[in-house]
Structure formats: structure tokens, C-alpha cells
């Protein structure tokens, strides 16, 4: 069974203090890895899709990278508005329907 594990569960940063969130996965034939941001009481918002090892995507202060076993979401000089839960997900390797397996998320808090 596919496993998606995110670490740490929670992370508290000072504004400007860069760090990384980890998403490790065990799935053969990776067909994509997705990062989402979720604010309290809202649905997840799509951030990035990565398809192959070595691929990188950037958006403002966020940068997602992918290896054959894990993905990192790097946050550079974070601001309080980056506070949210960050989720990663991978699709099932076979079958239709595009079912995703989600990690339980990293809850990020950025303080002034």
C-alpha cells in the first residue's frame, strides 16, 4: 500500500527564518507529486505538481523539489501569511480515477 509521510507534523518559525518541509513516499512508477496549502476551515489550494526526480518548481517564497524517494517544500524568508497546513499527495500507480493518497500535513506557524 502506498505510504505518504510528512514531517515535521508542526513547525514554528520566526519571520525570515527559512526552513524545509519533507514529504516521503513509497510508490512505484510515480505519476506525479502534488503540494497543497490549506488554511483553517478552507479546502486545500493547489501549489505545485512535480513529475520527475530533479524537477523543481517555485512560487514566491516557496520552492518544491523532488527526488526518487521524497519531496521538499523549501520556504525562504517566510512571512506570517505563509502560516497554513501544507499537504502533499501522490496518485495511485495504476488504475483509473486518479485517486490521490494524502499525507497528514505539516502545520506551519510563522511568527513576527
Amino acid at each position, binding site marked *: 500500500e502506498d505510504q505518504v509521510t510528512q514531517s515535521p507534523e508542526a513547525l514554528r518559525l520566526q519571520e525570515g527564518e527559512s526552513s524545509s518541509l519533507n514529504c516521503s513516499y513509497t510508490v512505484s512508477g510515480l505519476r506525479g507529486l502534488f503540494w497543497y496549502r490549506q488554511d483553517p*476551515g*478552507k479546502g486545500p489550494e*493547489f501549489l505545485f*505538481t512535480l513529475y520527475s526526480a530533479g524537477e523543481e518548481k517555485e512560487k514566491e517564497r516557496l520552492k518544491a523539489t523532488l527526488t526518487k524517494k521524497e519531496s521538499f517544500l523549501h520556504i525562504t524568508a517566510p512571512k506570517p501569511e505563509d502560516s497554513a497546513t501544507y499537504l502533499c499527495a501522490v496518485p495511485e500507480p495504476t488504475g483509473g*480515477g486518479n485517486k490521490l493518497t494524502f499525507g497528514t500535513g505539516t502545520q506551519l506557524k510563522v511568527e513576527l
Partner: protein
Amino acid sequence: DVKVTQSSRYLVKRTGEKVFLECVQDMDHENMFWYRQDPGLGLRLIYFSYDVKMKEKGDIPEGYSVSREKKERFSLILESASTNQTSMYLCASTYPPGGKSYGYTFGSGTRLTVV
């Protein structure tokens, strides 16, 4: 802007009531999903649908059913609501996968409380 719209942000229902949660997407997506999200348990798949009138059970289908009569609409039904179904319910949609997978677009969620 493409959207997945869930009909209610907050609902309070009584135990034993039949509850309908509605989801509509305007992206012509074939695949639609219903998840529930609980603290510490993450997102758990209840049901999904590949196409109109097609449905498949997810990981936790007990106590739920679904309906997809039109491509854009996917309804989740709680046949007889119970307190353990108090949760955040999330609808999502996507294109069917080709060689690559496509990510989901989520709705804003429905916070259901069963009393």
C-alpha cells in the same frame, strides 16, 4: 476562474436526519471525489466517481452514499446522520489520468456538525 462549489459552508443536523451535501464543478472534469477531514487523521476518501452514473467506494464508505446524475454535480448523502459523522467534508474534481496524473481542484469545504 475554474471552481468547485460546495453548497454549504456550515451545516448543523440532528442525529438520524438524511443529509445531502452538494458539489458542482465548472471545469468539465470527469472525476469527482468526496473526502472527509478530521484532526490527526488527514483526508480520507469516502466515494469517487469516474463519470456520470458511475461511482466507487473509497476507504470509508459506510454510512454514506453518492449520486452523480450530471457530469458537473456530485452529491454525498448521509443516510442517517450520526455524531461520528461530524467532520469537514471536501469535494474535489480532476481530469482522468493519462501518462501523468493531474491534481485535484478542491471546494471550500462543508463543516458538518451532527447533534
